[in-house]
Each structure stands twice: as structure tokens, then as C-alpha cells.
């Protein structure tokens, strides 16, 4: 195996494209190095993107924030502007692993590892975040929703990698929240999870919403029926019951050692309801 640490996106893209099958991007390494060690993958070349100029920056752009692909969870959580605007995304990223893992893990790595249980992904999808991708054919912007394509599979083409993730501008009285269920309090993988992002009017009625579910299908689910259940209402019991039903109906979970199909269907409805309430509160609404 070889290691390269290019300082420009062009050089990184060239290295990745030169050996598209056997080259891998190294960001925080908290998935990649574990998989190499376990013998699951055996890349010939690791392209460490952390030395690329600007890739560790968080920049205000168009009223939102552009998060460089190599920004770690710990760095994101220390950025007051992002924490204020997208608290649900930040809380999702901060759930990844331990303090040690936070020092290294990235959102782009979480997304590209393409685990159905990746914690930041439902929150990013609820936020309508957009990934910027660079590759042999130049640059393109793709909704985070369209990146995972199956367990361990992404829509990135050979030689492509993510350089940043954009969290869009949001109106006043808008916020988000993310919750996952794990049997422990820390250091575990989501049995199921829900991210909700919403906007309120001056009376506290939800006018816009996005609801995304994790670990209940091979890829993250954006549930439009769940958003419809919220829009036009306050987060009262009847509204949250309708939201929960839409979530349970949309999910296609599996039975495994971490939870049964029935358990996941029920719990994801509860999580979505609680996340919606928290998001409303953060957006300045009353319950």
C-alpha cells in the first residue's frame, strides 16, 4: 500500500483517477483504517485529503455554511455559527463514536462509508444539505440524499470525491433535531434514528418540514408523507401520531441482533415525534 497527501483537489482527483479501483480516500480513517485492519478491503493507495488547502475550513456562504470534507466532528461542534443554525446536524455528528473518534471523524466520511446507520446522514438529508464533488470531469453539486446507493455503495464515480458539504441558509423560526435509539448511552450503533428540520410561522404552525429516517432501510429515507403530516399543524398529539404512522409505514427495516422489524417500526415513530417537538422548540415555537 502507498500513502499520498496531496495539497490540491486537482492532484487528489488525479491520484484517485489514476487508480480508480484500488485507491481510497482517507479522511478521519475511523472507518477506513478499521476496515483495512480487519482485512475487509486492501487498497493499493490511500489519498489523504486532510492536507488539501481549505478542506478543513468552515466558511459562511450564501447565508449558510460550507463545511470542508476534512472538518472533524470536534471542530464542527466548536463552531458557534453552525451550532446556532443547524443544531440537529451538529448533535447528529457529535453522536459519532467517542471523544477520540470525534477528533478525527468527518461528515463526508460518514456519508461515503454508506452505512445505513450512519448518524449524520439523516440529519444532513433533513437539512437538504448538498455535497460538492470533484472528479475527472470537474465539479458537481449533489444532494446528500442522492449519495448513498445501498449498504456500502455511493453514487460517486471512479476518481470522484467530496470536497465539502453545504448547509443551506434557513429562515428565522426554523430549526432541526436528530435522535437515535441505542441500548447504551454512548459508543453504539443506531438501531433506528430520525432527523427533522422544520420552519414555523409567527403563530407556531409548521410551514415547511423534512423528515429523514436512518437504519430502517438500506439507505436513509426521506419521508414526504411524514413532512405532510406536520405541515399546517402545531406539534400536538394528533399531528405527532400522524407523523409517527407515516414513518412506521415508510420504513423497511430488517431483523437483526440490534432490533426486530416491529421494534424499529415502533421506535422510529416515537423518535420522529420527539425530534419534531425539539425542532419546534428550538425554532421558537410553544408546545
Amino acid at each position, binding site marked *: *500500500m502507498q500513502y499520498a*497527501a496531496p495539497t490540491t483537489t486537482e492532484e487528489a482527483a488525479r491520484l484517485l483517477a489514476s487508480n480508480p479501483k484500488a485507491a481510497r480516500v482517507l479522511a478521519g480513517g475511523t472507518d477506513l483504517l478499521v476496515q483495512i*485492519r480487519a482485512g475487509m478491503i486492501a487498497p493499493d493507495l490511500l489519498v489523504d485529503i486532510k492536507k488539501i488547502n481549505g478542506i478543513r475550513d468552515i466558511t459562511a456562504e450564501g447565508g449558510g455554511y460550507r463545511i470542508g470534507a476534512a472538518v472533524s466532528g470536534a471542530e464542527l461542534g466548536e463552531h458557534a455559527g453552525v451550532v446556532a443554525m443547524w443544531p440537529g446536524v451538529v448533535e447528529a455528528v457529535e453522536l459519532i463514536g467517542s471523544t477520540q473518534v470525534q477528533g478525527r471523524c468527518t461528515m463526508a466520511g460518514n456519508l461515503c462509508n454508506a452505512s445505513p446507520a450512519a448518524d449524520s446522514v439523516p440529519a444532513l438529508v433533513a437539512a437538504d444539505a448538498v455535497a460538492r464533488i470533484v472528479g475527472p470531469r470537474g465539479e458537481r453539486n449533489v444532494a446528500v440524499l442522492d449519495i448513498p446507493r445501498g449498504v456500502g455503495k455511493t453514487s460517486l464515480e471512479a476518481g470522484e470525491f467530496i470536497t465539502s458539504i453545504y448547509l443551506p441558509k434557513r429562515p428565522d423560526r426554523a430549526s432541526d433535531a436528530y435522535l437515535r435509539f441505542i441500548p447504551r448511552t454512548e459508543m453504539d450503533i443506531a438501531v433506528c434514528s430520525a432527523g427533522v428540520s422544520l420552519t414555523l410561522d409567527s403563530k407556531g404552525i409548521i410551514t415547511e418540514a423534512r423528515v429523514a429516517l436512518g437504519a430502517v432501510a438500506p439507505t436513509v429515507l426521506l419521508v414526504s408523507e411524514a413532512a405532510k403530516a406536520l405541515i399546517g399543524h402545531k406539534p400536538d398529539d394528533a399531528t405527532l401520531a400522524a407523523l409517527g404512522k407515516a414513518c412506521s409505514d415508510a420504513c423497511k427495516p430488517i431483523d437483526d441482533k440490534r432490533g426486530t422489524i416491529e421494534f424499529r417500526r415502533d421506535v422510529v415513530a416515537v423518535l420522529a415525534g420527539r425530534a419534531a417537538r425539539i425542532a419546534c422548540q428550538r425554532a421558537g415555537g410553544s408546545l
Partner: protein
Amino acid sequence: MSKIHVTTRINGDEAEFLCDAEETLLDVLRDHLNLTGAKEGCASGDCGACSVTLNGRLVCSCLVLGAEADGAEIATIEGMASGEKLHVLQQKFLDHAALQCGICTPGILIAAKSLLEKNPDPSETEVRYWLAGNLCRCTGYDKIINAVIDAAAEMRKV
């Protein structure tokens, strides 16, 4: 295959080594630099026995490549005491008997030090969450938590 030449700083001193791309920072510390304080428990990021700081951030050295240390600042348990004088945390771990076999101890001390640099007055809950990535199979954790809280109180006095 040609080795990678790395220049770095460890506990304030310049260090140089040659490594293969596969070798982790933990491998390099233990096998090339003879710094065996950081332990390998799991080699998968779960146990924290290999904790060091990299450019001031707490990380698992088993999940960092040796090559990534080029140009970086690393701090390991070997740099914690000043000569014969133990760091307050080290002394409190002895006072509270916060260790038995000791395998987890270097990692926990490094992790606790990085907590107290960020938050000199953590609550018990904050200490427990910060150290959630450091497993101890012997003590049952309470003594470790008490030692950290006591060390924090002592360090706030000076």
C-alpha cells in the same frame, strides 16, 4: 517498497522515523520509537488504550497512520510527568487506587488531561461522557472518575 520518511514532534522533541504506509502511529510509537506507554487493546478505535493527542486533539493512535504524523505535534503519556514529578492526575490515580492491571491507565490519563485543558471544572456526567471511549476491565470506573474530579479540583487551586 520504499519507506515513508516522517518528521514530527513528540512531547516537544523533534522525532524522525521511517515507516510503511500500513503502519499506524501506535505501531510507530511502540515498535520504532520505543514509546510503549500507549497500549494496543483493540486496534479498532473502541478501547482508548492507545490514546494520544495529535495537534492538540485527543485521538486513538491505532486509527492514525504513522505517515500522517508528518509535521504534526504529538503528545503521549511519556511526556506527562516532569522528570520525577508526577502530573496531578497521575498522583491522584495513585491516591484513589484508580487502576488495577494498568493497561487502560496511560490512555485514560491522556484523555483526562485533554478534558481538563478544555474544561477545568467538569461535572461527573461530563467526565463519564468524555471518557466513554476509554474502557477499563478492572476498576468499575468509579475510582477513575473520582480521581479525575479530585485532580481537577486540585489543579484549579494553583
